């Protein structure tokens, strides 16, 4: 188990470096020149060149890359070219917002998706199954930002149940939670739909396996078979994709944040993309990629705990 964990952690650092590398070079491929963008309409060619030198944009790309990695290792993610502040500070400000949204979205998704998926599998072929699966199909098929818009229209505008904004200036915990609820539900809905579909098919597969037949033949009550013996097996693939859904939810979060005017890493990256703030995009992507890998790695470790076969092989 210890070796397994160590190997996972090693793989994690490799993956983070890989992701950052990919993104770094993608961003360098952006046409358009940040220096002249920053200096605006009256800039002279000399001043543009000077700024480029200052930002290191005149050096070869690989040199810029090495510099970035070297600094990143010491926790320096560069300085935002727009604000002059350390990019890491702005990222740090955004992390709590993103974490609250993504974590609550995933929690909602798991709490709703797994039981619904199990129920659907257990009632395979019944009306309840059809109903849940139709709901799940809707959940994965509607664009998340559209669902957000409709929710604002219905739940914030027609019935004033929730605020239209995903964040509040209030420091009151419950006010913030109230503002978080609608975005989290919208984000959670699409992920829940996905998890429900996955849980159902995993559960159906497990319920068709020999050991379930054995348990039945031995007279183990159906309830125990489903909720204890089979569920743990079915949760293994579900657990495996929670990491994927987490990454996915970070992508959707950009849209949800945009719809609900909520701060977070997604809206920060979007803003930085429009402002061509390289350093900030890099920092944001670096942190997002690390978060994805970190979550996946922790899930892998949990996976090893749930599925005894994994850590041995």
């Amino acid at each position: 188990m210890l070796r397994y964990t160590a190997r996972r952690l090693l793989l994690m650092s490799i993956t983070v470096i890989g992701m950052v590398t990919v993104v770094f070079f993608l961003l360098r491929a952006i046409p358009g020149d940040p220096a002249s963008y920053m200096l605006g309409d009256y800039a002279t060619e000399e001043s543009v060149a000077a700024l480029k030198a200052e930002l290191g944009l005149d050096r070869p790309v690989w040199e810029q890359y090495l510099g970035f990695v070297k600094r990143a290792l010491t926790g320096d993610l560069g300085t935002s070219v727009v604000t002059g502040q350390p990019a890491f500070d702005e990222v740090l400000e955004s992390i709590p917002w993103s974490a609250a949204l993504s974590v609550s979205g995933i929690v909602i998704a798991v709490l709703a998706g797994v039981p619904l998926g199990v129920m659907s599998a257990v009632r395979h072929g019944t009306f309840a199954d059809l109903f849940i699966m139709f709901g799940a199909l809707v959940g994965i098929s509607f664009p998340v930002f559209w669902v957000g818009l409709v929710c604002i229209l219905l739940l914030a505008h027609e019935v004033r149940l929730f605020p239209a904004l995903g964040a509040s200036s209030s420091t009151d915990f419950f006010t913030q939670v109230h503002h978080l609820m609608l975005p989290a539900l919208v984000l959670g809905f699409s992920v829940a739909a996905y998890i429900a579909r996955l849980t159902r098919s995993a559960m159906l597969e497990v319920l068709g396996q020999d050991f379930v037949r054995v348990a039945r033949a031995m007279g183990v009550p159906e309830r125990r078979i489903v909720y204890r013996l089979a569920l743990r097996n079915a949760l293994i693939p579900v657990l495996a994709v929670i990491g994927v859904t987490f990454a996915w939810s970070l992508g959707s979060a950009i849209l949800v944040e945009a719809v609900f005017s909520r701060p977070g890493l997604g809206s920060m990256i979007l803003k930085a993309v429009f402002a061509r703030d390289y350093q900030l995009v890099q920092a944001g992507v670096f942190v997002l990629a690390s978060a994805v890998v970190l979550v996946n790695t922790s899930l892998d470790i949990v996976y090893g705990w749930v599925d005894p076969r994994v850590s041995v092989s």
Partner: protein
Amino acid sequence: MRKTFGALALILSAALIGTSAGAAELRVRIGSDVGNLDPARIFGIENQTVASHVYNGLVKYDQATNKILPDLAESWSVSEDGTAYTFKLRDGVMFHKGYGQLTSDDVKFSLERVLNPDTKSRYAGQLAGVKGVEAPDPLTVRVVLEAPNAGLLNKLTDFNQGWIASRKAVTEIGDKQYAMQPVGTGPFVFDKWSPGNQVRVVANKDYFGGAPSLDAVTFRIIKDETAAAIALENGEIDVFFALQSPPVIDRLKKADGVTVMNRVANHTINLVLNQTVKPLDDIRVRKAIAYGINREALIAGYFKGTKAPGHSVITSSFPEYTEEVPQYAHDPEKAKALLKEAGQEGFELELITVGLSPYNELVIPMASDLEKVGIKTKITVLERGAYLQARGKGDIMTCITGIVGPPDPDSPLVSLYATKSFPPGMNTSRYDKADDLLASASAEQDPAKRTAIYQQVMSQTMEDVPVLPLYADQLFMAHSSKVKGLVQNSLFTVQAYTVSLEE
């Protein structure tokens, strides 16, 4: 599972640290995040709005009348030849956060910083004729010009390059870091920026003009106008700044407890026709375009009457405003005739715009109109950086632009028509027949004569139509009924100093 919830609670509470509820706190919606509050480098109405609470200029515009009033300078005098302005500073003005008293050295520092090429200030051009800034004693500043410039005071008002920063603060905080740690003398002190979420300023109790009645102002970043409107109606915000969407304006006008304000801005939105690109070198083609675009319908249909007609690039908020210029009422037949005369039926016009609303949207009905008079159109929407580069090159056929700025006629006229505004700069039409008139306006000390010269520029440029004003921008703002004393300016900023809150 318990761990997850623990972490969630931690995260949520972490998100809440930073602001404390104030007694009288005004919440103002801004449309996008701030990023740079350094007067030498500031850009964008959100930044300018926040900065206007933190800084003062030597002089200021009256919010309502655009008259120039004393601010940090109690009084000023102009030398006889018009090349030296001497300002007497107010005594005992203190910078925020313990950066000491304002002296003439801070003014010299601020203005020279803009002029210094190393600063790369986008406003260096605004102070172009300034030879030097002298500080003979702590409370006296002398600005020396190369040549007389009657418009100088406009450049030294409390806006952009006119805002005065503390030498000590900029030096100690650092040239780049200063961008988001501004220190000024204004009625509010910069408190905290929460990226993507809000910016907060708190009352400067020692403000030389008297402490503001508000304790704090929070600028909330809310991009979507519908969401902002709902927030205003629900009492989540008090002031809706930069209101643009006609249906939202309409909705808020009908809402209870909400007041909608509007004022014509200092800028028009224009279609710039590059005279160096064929066939736009032919005045008949330019006129055909002017006749062909249904600007009346644009204002009535697309903007639902929320914009004013643009007769020239000088709007009705300027004292120099006039409607006595050549007009181009929608006339498709005339447009067709002119094209036929020029032998340019069916040429292709490339409409180039930056990918920002409303510029990228305006082109759609315009293209539709032009197609109807027999001009083929191609719409090219460019990212901001690419757009500026394209304009910098000077060979793009058209662009759509507005010169947002103070009610200083030089601001739009020089930017759009002077040859010195290219390259690089705003004179994308490459118009070259207004230089002499603009220079003589600068030298003219008599306001009435100056106005006449400016009006001559307007007539001439509207006859030549290198730039077609599509409409005069109009600024909308809404606030809840508990907001009292809000005055709307024409600068496209909002100022909370005069505001008080009533429950």
